[in-house]
């Protein structure tokens, strides 16, 4: 049965999928261990709300648990999970009706509230020049502000491409659109960001 999933997944992941579909809780725990970082990052990138990352990720994994039996192996498990993340984030965002803190909001961890994750600043700091580092941080902030202000169809596709580094084919598969549409939307999204951000 694991052979069904080998077209898009490694043998190890295929085996894990089968065990999860058979209701093996230990296998699902292994799946969570394997993909929790992936899901947390996607949620953070698409939702941008640090305070909600853990709760939203938990809801997403509950959905994965419920629907893993419906995974048919027509795409990789990562793509399948990505779709669930996007769908949930869209629904959640509509409920929240505001993306005002996307990407750049400072953690607002309450005292005594233990989180299962932390945000790591991975900004390149190769220059050893504090002034340049500050400038870079400001630039990142401006870019993220600009991305945050994009219409949803451009914001999502730009994050998929620039942050998650998905190929045109992967983006097209996940969003259910043609590669031509992917290319045109990415091009348009980049233009919009470039027009908003002052980059020398």
């Amino acid at each position, binding site marked *: 049965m694991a052979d069904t999933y080998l077209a898009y997944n490694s043998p190890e992941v295929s085996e894990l999928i089968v065990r999860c579909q058979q*209701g093996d809780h230990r296998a699902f725990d292994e799946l*969570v261990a394997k993909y929790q970082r992936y899901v947390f990052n996607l949620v953070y990138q698409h939702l941008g709300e640090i305070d909600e990352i853990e709760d939203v990720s938990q809801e997403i994994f509950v959905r994965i648990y419920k629907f893993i039996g419906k995974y048919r192996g027509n795409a990789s498990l990562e793509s399948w999970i990505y779709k669930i993340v996007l769908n949930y984030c869209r629904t959640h965002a509509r409920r929240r009706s505001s993306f005002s803190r996307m990407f750049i909001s400072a953690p607002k961890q309450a005292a005594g509230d*233990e989180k*299962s994750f932390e945000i790591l600043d991975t900004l390149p700091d190769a220059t050893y020049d504090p002034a340049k580092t500050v400038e870079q941080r400001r630039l990142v902030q401006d870019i993220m502000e600009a991305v945050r202000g994009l219409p949803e169809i451009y914001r999502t596709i730009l994050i998929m*491409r620039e*942050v998650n580094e998905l190929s045109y084919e992967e983006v097209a598969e996940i969003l259910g659109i043609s590669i031509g549409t992917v290319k045109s939307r990415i091009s348009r999204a980049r233009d919009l960001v470039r027009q908003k951000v002052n980059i020398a």
Partner: protein
Amino acid sequence: MNRLKAKRWLNEYLDGEIGLADKAEFERMMAQDPELRQEYEQLRKISLLMSSGPEVEVHPSAFRAKLMDRIVPQQRYNFTPQRAFAGSMLVALLVVTIAFFQYIYSRAVENNAGNVSVATAGLTSESTISINASASQFLNATLQRVESGDSRAAQKLVEQIDRQAGLYEGAFCTKTASGNSYIFPGGLPGELNIRVDAMSLGEIQQIVSQYPGSSVALVDLADGSQLSLRDYGVIHPMGRIDLRITFNRP
């Protein structure tokens, strides 16, 4: 047209998705078009900075533990009224089943106690033994067999005789050279009618063998057939028999 093509190639070039032939031509175009070159540099910088944004690092087990606590009880131990009802019905069924088997068992025990075994149910088994001894000798013999050792059968025979005929009431023991001897001051009958089980029959046979000249009748079964006393005990080990014991000596 060239501008549109340049725009498409620019994005494909940034994404590493441009073909080799197109790539060479696009690089020639950039070399000749400073504006295109600047646009490329700006987009490349945006791309670089976006991809170097903050990342989330998840603690290895904390999140999983919380999640599995939520998922596993949902599936295994979720308490619902339907499950509570099903559980109580199961307990009730178990209680009824136990009670039923207890009833069956008690009936079986009762039947055995009522002198009717499964094998002899419906049969009236009767027999007669003529002992060439007095009733006093016979009763002394039963008591001496009880005293002589650990014969549970002898003890049982004495209990059956005492319960049904009351012959041991008021008896007292005297010491003699050959052992204890029992005196029955109330007097004893010439015959004894008791219902005994197969084990007690064996005891009676042992006593009868001490007195030459005694005779044992066959056991009459309700279907007209007859069995020796020994065979009856073997074939119907749980059976009971109405026994008439006559004493040939006063």
